[in-house]
């Protein structure tokens, strides 16, 4: 009996190791699949001339494209524009969303459900469907060919989801904690700023990050509402990079530009990552 038990124990150990190995291989495949395009972009951006046609996987550290990009005033200007647009969009939508979410999540008033539904519906429309209406609006405000037009346009898709996410966060907020603040004499404003907001860090960081990324990467509105090069944002600026002749696709410069504009996003994600993760796991609210 003991021999049988030992044999089955050995079998289970073997099975566990096999499973572990299988999982490792699977993970490796997924990693290669998701990361290879970025790796290839980096490799390509570091090559110039005929080296671009090499299929070697080893990078060659030729910084020609990067130097050219950084000396191009249109490109550096577009980064500044993008930072302004994405930053303002994020700040404005968070400010609007926090106030809206407090009302929708914590106060009782008529038509609340309807309003939430309306907000959700707004975010369902495809961009192209709101384009012409948005164009009229932009012209009306005299924002055509100014980056303000993009901030206005981006709010239409960042505000709905920030409101939606923050509202569900506010809803799940313990009722007794808010009541404790009311007993302590807090006004709505003080509850929002001194009790709710400090505990909303993770939610703000994650929704803000998402809004920033959306605004940073947006192409269609940016192409339509901006006419002149000095007001362009990054995605359009990259799209309009041209080669020496119309028959040459500027593969190297485009790759280099793509890498450069990913860096700010990467920096933001790394900076906020800890807050987001700790917010997801710590159960910061409970007791």
């Amino acid at each position, binding site marked *: 009996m003991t021999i049988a038990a030992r044999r089955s124990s050995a079998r289970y150990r073997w099975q566990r190791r096999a499973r572990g190995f299988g999982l490792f291989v699977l993970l490796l495949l997924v990693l290669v699949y998701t990361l290879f395009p970025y790796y290839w972009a980096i490799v390509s951006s570091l090559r110039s001339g005929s080296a671009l046609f090499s299929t070697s996987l080893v990078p060659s550290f030729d910084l020609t494209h990067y130097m050219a990009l950084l000396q191009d005033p249109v490109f550096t200007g577009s980064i500044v524009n993008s930072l302004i647009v994405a930053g303002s969009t994020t700040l404005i939508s968070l400010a609007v969303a926090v106030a809206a979410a407090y009302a929708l999540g914590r106060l009782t008033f008529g038509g609340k459900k309807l309003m939430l539904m309306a907000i959700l519906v707004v975010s369902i429309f495809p961009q192209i469907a709101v384009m012409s209406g948005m164009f009229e609006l932009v012209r009306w405000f005299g924002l055509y060919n100014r980056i303000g037009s993009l901030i206005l346009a981006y709010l239409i898709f960042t505000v709905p989801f920030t409101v939606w996410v923050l509202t569900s966060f506010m809803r799940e907020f*313990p009722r*007794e*904690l808010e*009541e*404790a*603040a*009311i*007993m*302590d*004499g*807090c006004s709505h404003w*003080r509850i929002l700023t001194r*009790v709710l907001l*400090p*505990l909303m860090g993770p939610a703000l960081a994650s929704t803000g990050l998402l809004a920033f990324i959306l605004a940073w990467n947006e192409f269609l509105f940016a192409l339509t509402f901006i006419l002149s090069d000095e007001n362009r944002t990054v995605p359009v600026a990259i799209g309009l990079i041209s080669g020496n002749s119309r028959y040459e696709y500027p593969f190297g410069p485009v790759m280099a530009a793509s890498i450069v504009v990913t860096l700010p996003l990467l920096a933001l994600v790394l900076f906020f990552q800890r807050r987001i993760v700790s917010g997801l796991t710590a159960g*910061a*609210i*409970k*007791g």
Partner: protein
Amino acid sequence: MASVSLNQVSKSYGAVDIIRAVDLAIADGEFVVFVGPSGCGKSTLLRLIAGLVPVSSGDISIADEDMTEVPASKRGIAIVFQSYALYPHMTIARNIGFALETSGLGKPEIKAKVTDIARMLKIDHLLGRYPRQLSGGQRQRVAIGRALVRQPKVFLFDEPLSNLDTDLRAEMRVEIARLHEELGTTMVYVTHDQIEAMTLADRIVVLNEGRIEQIGTPQELYRQPANQFVAGFIGSPRMNFVAGALLGEKARGATTLGVRPEAIRLVPAEEAHVSGTLLRLEDLGHEHLAYVEIARDITWTVRLAAHPDRERGAMVGLGWAEEALYRFGTDGRAVA
């Protein structure tokens, strides 16, 4: 220090009536305990008194002043919540002092008051920590401290000890009793726990489905329950019931009869009022609980001081003193 009185207070959410026409007068300095089954509206009634939810109809006055429309923070009431509801991002000192901070008191005064309160509750060594670094009992003390610092006229507690283990619960129970003695403040206390209700209360209010079933001292409720609900609710293990018909003439026409487990003795068959099969015996050390099936699907609990020396499945006779029998009419009300 203040009396609290509720006059025909009702609360409904939409079409659902949660609190139905409650009349209640709480004297200055009294310790009143609300008990009742889960969902009967105890917390809601407490919130109505605190002003956290508005009444649907009726009046609430505190210290003989109409408070029905006065906002929660202006009523001179403090509440200790079941979940403690401490601010997770503030230190213990700030948690306790937050109400004073909100009212605009100066930093040195706040510090002095917070230190006083903390010392009184033996949490002065924890002032620099955060709630997550505290044990359940310590958080409970902080929650009480936060209520105390405002020097309320009325103290409300919503099941404050239900998240603590048994030892700590007993300790905090004594602490709260001491607090009431020292401060002499009016206190309203919601609990599930029979022992808390019986030991802390000057008077107990039994609630059921948003109505008051009975108000009285613990002894009154135990000895003279007004109806079958109160009889079954107060006392642990709960009172044994049986249809009057099963006891024949002894029922004196009552629909339902009740006997408390501690009033029953094991007696020889010829003296027995009822008899049944011993289903199970539980040895609790200081006492024994016997479960006796006196009729199909009617099992009575009997509390015995010593082991009854009977086997499981044996027939046992049960007897009790005549005055230990409670009689209830068709409407559930107690009859003589």
